[in-house]
């Protein structure tokens, strides 16, 4: 035996529990079988195995992991309140554990409790400045509250760590679009499409980015691509409006009629049709379309109905102005 070994052994035995920390938290590996159940997606079995009596026997890494497993599996079974309690208990015992803190933050954020989630994410970042989930949580909270630049910064930090998530690139692009940083949004969306080429959402957002850059033709192509990938009638509705903006009245009318065939009484499509009629001098036809929007007021057409009412009044004024002009002549 080396001469210093007995001394080291004596010191180790005499040391308080926290002296182990530099060598990692103690683990007896008791949670390992339950972790395997978790990995197999057996949520009910995991929760059944993690009885209070069993948890009392755990320490260190095992105990921390037990709270994570309980929270994760309660959440998996659609019991977010129970998951929050598990994570909160875990955080009270391991206040500097970023996994527990970020899980608690994310579930609170998902439940709309952003005021409680935000300080948790900030605590995570104080402990681990490059924590992707904490940055993502803060990006979403800041976006919701209106702090768009801060949100974009957090998305950038998230994407430095997790750059293979197409949905994160899309979320980042949406914030950039709201900030009117359209070129960067365009780049972010192309990156998203590289990762997930068949995403209708990315094509729709790219359409908006291209339109914001003045490329209405390209934007309409992207809406066609989105529709082909299953974006639904919404993409056609957007296309009808974009065609109207491009001054392609006949094509806009055709697209609006296609939308109306799928969704009779659609506020946006009727608006497009009314606008094309107004442009042809058919104010009565325009008013008839706008009256239809007003008739479907409420729910999905709440704003469209108000806009239709305002345009119907204006269309009647235009018609009476034209009649006055005719009789004057």
């Amino acid at each position, binding site marked *: 035996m080396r001469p210093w070994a007995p001394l080291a052994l004596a010191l180790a035995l005499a040391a308080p529990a926290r002296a182990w920390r530099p060598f990692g938290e103690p683990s007896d590996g008791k949670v390992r079988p339950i972790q395997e159940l978790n990995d197999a997606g057996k949520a009910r079995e995991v929760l059944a195995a993690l009885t209070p009596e069993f948890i009392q026997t755990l320490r260190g890494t095992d105990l921390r992991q037990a709270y994570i497993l309980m929270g994760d599996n309660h959440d998996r079974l659609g019991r977010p309140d129970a998951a929050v309690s598990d994570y909160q208990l875990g955080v009270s015992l391991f206040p500097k554990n970023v996994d527990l803190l970020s899980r608690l933050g994310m579930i609170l954020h998902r439940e709309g409790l952003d005021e409680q989630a935000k300080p948790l994410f900030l605590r995570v970042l104080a402990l681990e400045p*490059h924590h992707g989930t904490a940055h993502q949580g803060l990006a979403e909270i800041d976006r919701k509250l209106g*702090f768009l630049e801060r949100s974009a910064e957090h998305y950038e930090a998230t994407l430095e*760590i997790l750059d293979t998530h197409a949905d994160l690139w899309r979320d980042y692009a949406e914030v950039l679009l709201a900030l*009117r940083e359209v070129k960067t949004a365009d780049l972010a969306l192309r990156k998203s499409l590289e990762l997930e080429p068949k995403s209708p959402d990315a094509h729709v957002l790219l359409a908006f980015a291209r339109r914001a850059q003045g490329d209405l033709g390209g934007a309409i192509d992207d809406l066609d691509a989105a529709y082909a990938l299953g974006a639904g009638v*919404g993409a056609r509705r957007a296309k009808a409006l974009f065609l109207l903006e491009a001054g392609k009245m006949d094509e806009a009318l055709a697209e609006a009629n296609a939308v109306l065939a799928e969704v009779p009484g659609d*506020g*946006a499509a009727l608006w497009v049709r009314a606008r094309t009629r107004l442009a042809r001098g058919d104010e009565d036809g325009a008013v008839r379309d706008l009256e239809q929007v007003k008739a479907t007021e409420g729910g999905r057409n709440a704003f469209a109905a108000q806009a239709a009412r305002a*345009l119907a009044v204006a269309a009647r004024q235009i018609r009476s102005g034209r009649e006055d002009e005719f009789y004057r002549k």
Partner: protein
Amino acid sequence: MTRRAFLLALALIAAAPAAAAPDLSADALLRDHLWREVRLAPPERRPKVGLVLSAGSLRGTAHVGVISVLEGAGFPIDVVAGTSMGAVVGSMYSGGLTVPELWKTALAVKVDSGNNLSGRRLISLVLFDNLLSSEKTELSIRKTLGGRRFDQLKKPFACVSMDVYTGEAIIFRDGDVATAVRASMNLPGIFQPLEYRHRYLVDGGVVDYIPVDAARLLGAEWTIASITENDYTAARPKSVLDSLEQVIDIRGSFLSRAQRKQANFLIEPQVGDIGMFEAARIPEAMEKGVIAAAKKLTAAEQSLILASIPKLAPGWAAPETGR
């Protein structure tokens, strides 16, 4: 990042709220389309938009947050009117300060930024009725705006003061900006009234808390008002200054009740619990301005769109049937 942490992060990302798909509903798309029409329309084809910034002492720094959201969304703002702190923020915004510059300027504000407040002065104020001077406000505005006159500002601007001899609201829209702004935020009972243009002027918040009338005088046809009222029901005044603040705030609230009906759209940052002299809470006030404006942005856009349709419609009609 360790492999374990990376895997945990991936698991968490998967558990995170699903990325929301773009809103392609009829209402959302029509709003987006019409908002584009409003933003791109020449000024004569939409209502002239007036931004109205209320009085509210240091709470009024929330206006900076409101402006940052409106600017960010490309909200067209043609004229600006302000009272008291609203006049300070409004003059700087009309003078061309960018949002980051406004933000930085507001963060630098302290209790004694716009006056000659000191311990000795405060004792003198309470014991001997020696009012403070608001000259520092004037100097600070003059320095920031380079001594500009109203007609040299980038956006038409007006601010309101009150003549203590007559009780009249005096709307300034010409002459020296810095002096007018000083008069507009010359809190009665604390600052000496300012003698200017044969008037004896104090804070306009006493008579015109939300100066919609001043914006209309500048030609505004549609007004959006940012209101930073105090929640005086929660305050328990314990000193002469507290009592004075309470009376001014109650008066302001009564005025505000009638005036808020004159504005087309209201944004009300929740800053009612921030005291008149709580400079340490300025960052919080500005953030609350951002939150309040962001929450109501869509509704504000809708309101302006609906007001713009009568002016936009003739341009949509067949050329021979247009105006």
